[in-house]
C-alpha cells in the first residue's frame, strides 16, 4: 500500500496554486482522504500533486447577508460542529465516514471528487448552493444543478480551483438521512429535504451517478400531498441509471429511496416548525 511516485508542490497562495497547476498539471491535494486512498489502490496516478492544504484563507465558515460561506478547505468536523450552517449540512457532515475521516476530509475535496456515494453533493443540491471557482483568468459562480455533471464529474475546469460554497443561511427546515455502507459509511442512498412554507426542495444521491433534484416529489409536496405520498413520487424521478453493487442492488436502493426521502421530508417538516 504505497501511492505511485509523484512530484510534490506545496502552494502558499491561491495564485501560486493556480500557477503551479497550469505549469505542471496533476491534481490538487486538500485533505487527501479521497485522493490518497485512490492512489494507494492505483486507481489514480496523477504524476504531480499540488498541496493546497495550507491555504488557511480557504478554511472556515462565515455568514454574510443571508448566506453562509463554507471555505473549500473547511473540514467535515468543522461543518458538523457549526451552528451557522443549515441543519441538513451539519447533519450530513456528521455522518461522513468516521471521526478520523472528518478530521482530515474537506468540503471542497468532497464535492470536487464527486463520488456518487458522497453525502455533501446531495445536501448542496437540495439547498441550491452556489460554487465559487477560480482560474488564473478570473472567478465564476456555478449553481449546484450545473456543478455535478456525472459520475466523479463536475463543472470544474482542468486549471480551476474551488474556493468556497455558499448556501442560504435560513432556507427553512432541512434534513439529511442516509443508508450507509456498514464498512465505509459512504451513502448507498442519501436524501436531503428543505421545507419552507408549502414548498420543498428534495435531492437524492448515493444511488444515482450524481446528486439530483426530485421534481416529482417537490411537485407532489407543493400540491398538498403528505409526506408518504410525496416520498413515493421519488420513483418517478429515478431513471434507469440506478447504481447497484454487492452491498445493495439497484432495485433495493430504489425502494430505500422512498424510505429515506420520507424520513428526510418528515424531519425537515418538523424542523420548519
Amino acid at each position: 500500500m504505497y501511492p505511485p511516485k509523484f512530484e510534490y508542490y506545496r502552494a502558499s497562495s491561491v495564485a501560486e496554486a493556480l500557477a503551479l497547476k497550469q505549469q505542471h498539471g496533476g491534481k490538487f491535494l486538500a485533505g487527501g482522504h479521497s485522493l490518497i486512498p485512490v492512489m494507494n489502490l492505483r486507481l489514480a496516478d496523477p504524476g504531480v500533486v499540488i498541496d493546497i492544504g495550507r491555504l488557511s484563507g480557504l478554511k472556515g465558515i462565515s455568514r454574510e447577508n443571508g448566506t453562509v460561506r463554507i471555505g473549500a478547505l473547511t473540514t467535515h468536523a468543522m461543518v458538523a460542529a457549526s451552528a451557522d450552517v443549515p441543519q441538513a449540512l451539519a447533519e450530513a457532515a456528521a455522518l461522513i465516514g468516521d471521526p478520523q475521516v472528518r478530521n482530515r476530509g474537506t468540503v471542497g475535496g468532497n464535492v470536487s471528487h464527486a463520488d456518487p456515494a458522497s453525502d455533501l453533493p446531495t445536501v448542496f443540491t437540495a439547498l441550491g448552493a452556489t460554487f465559487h471557482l477560480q482560474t488564473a483568468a478570473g472567478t465564476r459562480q456555478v449553481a449546484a444543478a450545473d456543478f455535478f455533471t456525472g459520475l466523479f464529474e463536475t463543472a470544474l475546469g482542468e486549471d480551476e480551483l474551488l474556493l468556497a460554497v455558499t448556501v442560504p443561511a435560513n432556507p427553512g427546515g432541512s434534513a439529511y438521512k442516509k443508508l450507509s455502507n456498514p464498512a465505509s459509511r459512504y451513502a448507498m442512498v442519501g436524501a436531503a429535504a428543505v421545507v419552507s412554507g408549502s414548498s420543498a426542495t428534495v435531492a437524492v444521491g448515493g444511488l444515482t451517478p450524481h446528486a439530483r433534484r426530485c421534481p416529482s416529489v417537490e411537485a407532489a409536496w407543493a400540491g398538498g400531498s403528505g409526506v408518504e405520498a410525496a416520498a413515493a413520487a421519488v420513483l418517478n424521478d429515478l431513471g434507469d441509471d440506478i447504481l447497484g453493487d454487492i452491498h445493495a442492488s439497484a432495485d433495493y436502493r430504489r425502494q430505500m429511496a422512498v424510505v429515506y426521502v420520507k424520513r428526510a421530508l418528515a424531519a425537515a417538516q418538523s424542523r420548519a416548525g
Partner: protein
Amino acid sequence: MTQISVTINGKTYTKDVEPRTLLVHFLRDHLELTGTNIGCDTSQCGACTVHLDGLAVKSCATLTVQADGAAVTTIEGLASNGQLHPMQQAFWDNHGLQCGYCTPGMIMAATKLVEGRPEISDDEIRHGLEGNICRCTGYENIVRSVKAAAAQMGGGV
C-alpha cells in the same frame, strides 16, 4: 526527496522523504515506531490511527509531507514515566483486546473521543469508534474499557 521536520512523541526529526511516503510508513519503516499498525488497504480499519496536531487521523491516508511542521503522537508516546496512560490501563483491566492488532488504533481514537466527556454513553462510544474495526472482541470489552477510562480521566487528556 522533500525535507520535512516533524515532532513525534516530543522529539523533532528532520528528514528527507519521498513525497509519496505515507505517514504510517514514515513511523514504522523510517523511525521504527512499529506500534502503529496497518490493517487494511482501504483506509477503513483505523489500526493506523495517530494524533496529528491533537486530532485523531488515519496515518495510511496522510502523506508525511502533509505532517511537515506538525506534532504527532503515536501509541509509543502515551505512557509517561513508565506508567500506562489511563486508556491503556483500562484496556488491560477490562480485557479490551484479544489479538491486539486493532488496539493501538483503538486507544489513539478512544483517547480523543473521551476528551471532555467523562460520562460518555455506550452508544456514543460505539458511534465514535466507527472508524476502528476489531476482528476479535465483538467490541463489548472495548466499550467497557473506554467507558472506564473516560470516568478515570474525568474529561482530561
